[in-house]
């Protein structure tokens, strides 16, 4: 395996600088554009030599909303609805680390039952995101059944979240200080029965998709990301766990009540496309197991939200808290100057960090591998642009 430097120099030699006239004519520049059904609001320019990709330059920013600037104009509670917009179908996680960071700044103590409900909402939302990501991975490879099944089963979990939080997707449920409302009655056994139904469905996915030899041919051994390169590129989430680095924020830096939950960090050693597509499925099975534990260990009654004055403000200071979202470590760096409005909010998301692996992995691959490699990086364009 040539080391990472030669790979980048080689792609630079061919792509970035002015390549010798004869070679430049051979290359065809293709824009895998924002409207391309394969990328979704994200463009990367690739130079194709025959069927091989020689150069790839990601060009995000088509759905940049300026979330970080907007945060500076709103107080801590009003930030929640617009902060979950970057990835609405993982909204419990993206507001979770924001709430943790604000609680550390303002000094709020979340009651125990509130922490449990917050963890359940986060696990359910992780499954909703991963099922949606798996569905798109299926249609990327042309497997329409694999698009329809996860999208249908996702409806079962969204129904749970709708009962718990009141909204299907954009819940605005995690608030600095806990959760907005308690669990409705009958939620517990409804959740258990629907989670068991989902666990049965995972076996179907493996039969029709993962063990399908055509899928294996297309993904096994394709775009291998070795452990050193994964660490050097600083990728996160299922991408780093697929390259034999067992890093999961819930286990490395347990927040809230995750230190009382015992679960195994799922990781694989091969680091190829297949591993990057199989680790999320293992994660989903693991989070089903976690939800059952959470429901058992939950205190029967108690407050779910700490009492806050309308515009909570704390002493000036900084905090950086991170949470394991569907796409890896999702961290908030908040600087506060003593007023209820945060002075600076920096959102560090998994997609933005995984994007760096794209040009590295696509170099030298075939054009037909592009969707499999691109979507296996667990990349959500809207979240990367913030």
């Amino acid at each position, binding site marked *: 395996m040539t080391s990472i430097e030669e790979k980048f120099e080689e792609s630079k030699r061919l792509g970035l600088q002015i390549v010798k006239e004869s070679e430049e004519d051979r290359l065809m520049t293709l824009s895998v554009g924002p409207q391309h059904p394969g990328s979704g609001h994200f463009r990367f320019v690739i130079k194709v030599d025959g069927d091989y990709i020689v150069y790839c330059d990601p060009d995000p920013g088509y759905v940049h909303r300026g979330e970080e600037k907007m945060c500076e*104009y*709103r*107080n801590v*509670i*009003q*930030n*929640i*609805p*617009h902060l979950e917009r970057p990835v609405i179908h993982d909204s419990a996680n993206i507001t979770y680390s924001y709430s943790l960071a604000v609680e550390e700044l303002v000094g709020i103590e979340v009651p125990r039952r509130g922490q449990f409900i917050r963890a359940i909402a986060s696990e359910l939302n992780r499954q909703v995101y991963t099922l949606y990501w798996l569905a798109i991975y299926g249609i990327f490879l042309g497997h329409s*059944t694999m698009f329809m099944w996860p999208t*249908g*089963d996702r*409806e*079962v979990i969204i*129904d749970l979240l*709708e*009962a*718990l*939080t*009141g*909204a299907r997707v*954009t819940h*605005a449920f995690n608030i600095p200080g806990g959760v*907005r*409302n*308690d*669990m*409705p009655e*009958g*939620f517990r056994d409804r959740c258990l*029965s*629907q989670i068991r*139904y989902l666990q049965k469905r995972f076996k*179907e996915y493996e*039969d*029709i998709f993962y*063990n*399908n*030899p055509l899928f*294996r041919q297309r993904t096994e051994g394709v775009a291998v990301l070795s452990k050193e390169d994964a660490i050097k590129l600083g990728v996160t989430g299922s991408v780093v766990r697929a390259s034999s680095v067992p890093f999961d924020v819930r286990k490395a830096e347990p927040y809230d009540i995750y230190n009382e939950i015992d679960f195994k960090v799922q990781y694989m050693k091969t680091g190829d496309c297949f591993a990057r597509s199989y680790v999320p499925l293992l994660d989903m099975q693991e989070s089903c197991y976690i939800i059952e534990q959470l429901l058992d260990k939950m205190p029967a009654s108690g*407050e*779910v*939200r700490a*009492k*806050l004055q*309308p515009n909570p403000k704390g002493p000036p200071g900084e905090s950086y808290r991170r949470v394991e979202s569907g796409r890896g470590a999702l961290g908030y760096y908040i600087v506060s100057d003593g007023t209820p409005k945060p002075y600076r909010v920096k959102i560090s998301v998994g997609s933005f960090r995984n994007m760096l692996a794209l040009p590295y992995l696509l170099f030298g691959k075939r054009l037909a591998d592009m969707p499999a490699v691109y979507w296996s990086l667990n990349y959500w364009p809207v979240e990367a642009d913030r």
Partner: protein
Amino acid sequence: MTSAGGFIKSIESGSKHLVIKRFTLRYPEKKLKFVGDGYQFDPKRGVGIAGYRGRHILMHDKCTGCQLCAIACEGIAEAIGMVKVDEQWKHNKKGIMPQIDYGKCVFCGLCVDACPFYALFMTNDYELSAFTKEHLIYTPAQLAIKPKYQGDVEIVIDDRGATHG
């Protein structure tokens, strides 16, 4: 997994689904049933009551025109404006009540959290489409009407798979 075995397993798994019941909810004929009758907030305990966050409902007899909901929505969607109401209430001297523009509202429910007088809750009604943008603005009188939404279907899981039964 030999390739032949893989194919046979995928054929078997695919054709097995020909007998499993369809999952689609046929919306106009059947509607989903929600838990409770809408999201409410109890200011004394400072915590919400689980419920679907649909169209708001305004209790005219409790609203004091304190504009707290409009202030809460300012930073989010500026969907709430206070308008004059012709009823005379002794607890609502200025006679102003919130008017919600559903073209802007994001249904986050933070206005319900901000209302200290149990006046503004949310209901199960989510069928709010209109032909023009002006029709999306619900006046306080429109907000006072109780919704006529009754859903009767929910996800039923049995051994033949999940359906909207």
